């Protein structure tokens, strides 16, 4: 949007299209631009680039979560459960988190809770080796809850600082698979009453409006503490998080920006909003 632009209907339409094109969703985009119009009138803003800056401020406010980091230091072991639909980047994200904690001097244990998908256990084992983490696995096809239980026992006896539990990808509409996830959580809670201390939903930034349904149903099933938005190194903008943050107040805690172990960043609202307009 050029700096000499008029604040007219075309201008507001252009802003709407940027938001819709970023997967913010048509209704959310209309509401955001509507409230922007009111503020522009109220504050008697005359310059187009000032309107654009105001929009960025309003968008950043929506995704500014109160707890950006992970609250792990008050628990030993701290338990993180990672969930999400198929192929979004859960296993890779766990490898990245493990590496981050290792760099912070923490002792990490990874639990191979995906006992279903071909070579899922082997895939996580590679990440455990790369990140210098301990590794707990059972046989292919075994009960994921049993793996979680085993991992927590091992963590307690080894003085592990962080346990990260990988789970199989599952579409949120599959009731039996969502129930399986609830069982894994119950088993964790039985061993450590306020665990898992973090339940992270991994969302693929290329996902459209179905992300809202994913966040809603996973939150209802296992109560989410945060979101990791992956594949932001692509051209997708991940605009679905605005709807999720405003409706469900689940903060985005990290973003994935590549396939390497170091490609994880803490979520920064301002940078995220800037990128929408690139």
């Amino acid at each position, binding site marked *: 949007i050029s700096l000499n632009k008029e604040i007219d209907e075309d201008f507001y339409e252009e802003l709407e*299209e940027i938001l*819709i*094109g*970023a*997967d913010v*969703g*048509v*209704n959310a985009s209309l509401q955001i631009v509507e409230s922007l119009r009111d503020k522009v009138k109220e504050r008697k803003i005359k310059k187009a680039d000032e309107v654009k800056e105001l929009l960025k401020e309003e968008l950043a406010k929506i995704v500014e979560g109160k707890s950006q980091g992970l609250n792990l230091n008050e628990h030993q072991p701290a338990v993180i459960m990672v969930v999400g*639909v*198929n*192929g*979004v*980047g859960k296993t890779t994200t766990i490898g990245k988190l493990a590496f981050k904690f290792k760099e912070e001097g923490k002792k990490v244990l990874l639990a191979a809770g995906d006992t*279903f*998908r*071909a*070579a899922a256990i*082997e*895939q996580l*084992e*590679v*990440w455990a080796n790369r990140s210098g983490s301990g590794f707990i696995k059972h046989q292919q096809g075994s009960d994921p809850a049993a793996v979680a239980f085993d991992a927590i026992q091992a963590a307690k006896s080894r003085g592990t600082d962080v346990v990260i539990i990988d789970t199989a990808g599952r*579409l*949120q*509409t599959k009731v039996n698979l969502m129930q399986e996830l609830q069982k894994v959580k119950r088993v964790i809670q039985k061993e450590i009453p306020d665990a898992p201390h973090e339940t992270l939903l991994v969302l*693929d930034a*290329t*996902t*459209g*409006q*179905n*992300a809202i*349904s994913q966040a809603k149903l996973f939150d209802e099933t296992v109560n989410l503490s945060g979101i990791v938005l992956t*594949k932001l*190194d*692509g*051209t*997708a*903008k991940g605009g*679905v998080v605005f709807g999720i943050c405003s409706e469900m107040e689940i903060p985005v805690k990290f973003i994935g920006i590549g*396939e390497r172990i170091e490609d994880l960043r803490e979520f920064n609202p301002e940078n995220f909003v800037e990128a929408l307009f690139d």
Partner: protein
Amino acid sequence: SLSEKLQNTFKKLKGKGKLSEKDVKEAMREVRMALLEADVNYKVVKDFVNKVKERAVGAEVLKSLTPGQQVIKIVHEELIDLMGGTNSSINIASKPPTIIMMVGLQGAGKTTTAGKLGANLKKKGRRPLLVACDVYRPAAIHQLEVVGSQIDIPVFSMGDRQNPVNIAKAAVSHAENHGNDTVILDTAGRLHINEELMDELKNIKAEVKPHEILLVVDAMTGQDAVNVAEQFNEALGIDGAVLTKLDGDTRGGAALSVKAVTGCPIKYIGVGEKLDALEDFHPDRMASRILG
């Protein structure tokens, strides 16, 4: 639903013979909303709505339909027309082996779909060979080997230290020497904006000249579907697409975006994690799903 919204839009007009420009303009607003909510790319929606508008203005409202139903009928037909009407089967080579190359973004479902396609072709009496060209993702080769063993289809691999171009080349020779009439190349997921990795695909294509290049797309992909489809098509020339994870509740507007921007037909859909969960693409069912 869209039909309810359109019933409301047209509540005030009873028994009119034709759809006026004003009636249609109002209805198109609802159609646009429905398609955007279904994740169809907003530029594709613009073109589509204009096309529908042309057909709808002055259209006779059939005696058996309300004006709202008449508009839905036109939208439905236009969607089916746009997404269907093309060859939806794999191109078979006149001289074996037929070479199929699976490409797409990370996590779209290529490896699983390669297995499903192999199983499907085996059922039809063909002798497929799965080829492990993903040398980057941890345990990717192992994953394809497990998939192959589950459906009793051989997997060709040269480990993860070899160049995927060499692996593809060696796989085709292997197929020729072992009577495999179909070669399915599973490639690593990659971004359409990664020049080096897109070049790798171009090099594989130049080396083995696939008869069928399938773009595997996650059905929950949003607005970005247009960028991905455009870039992969520009780089390689896509013969068809497979839309995966349609066993969920995503509306699947990416189907329309992919077809509109590349002209390539969607040939199959993935409807589950098991290796028998592959179905033919039906444009009429997809149209209903997108409209919600």
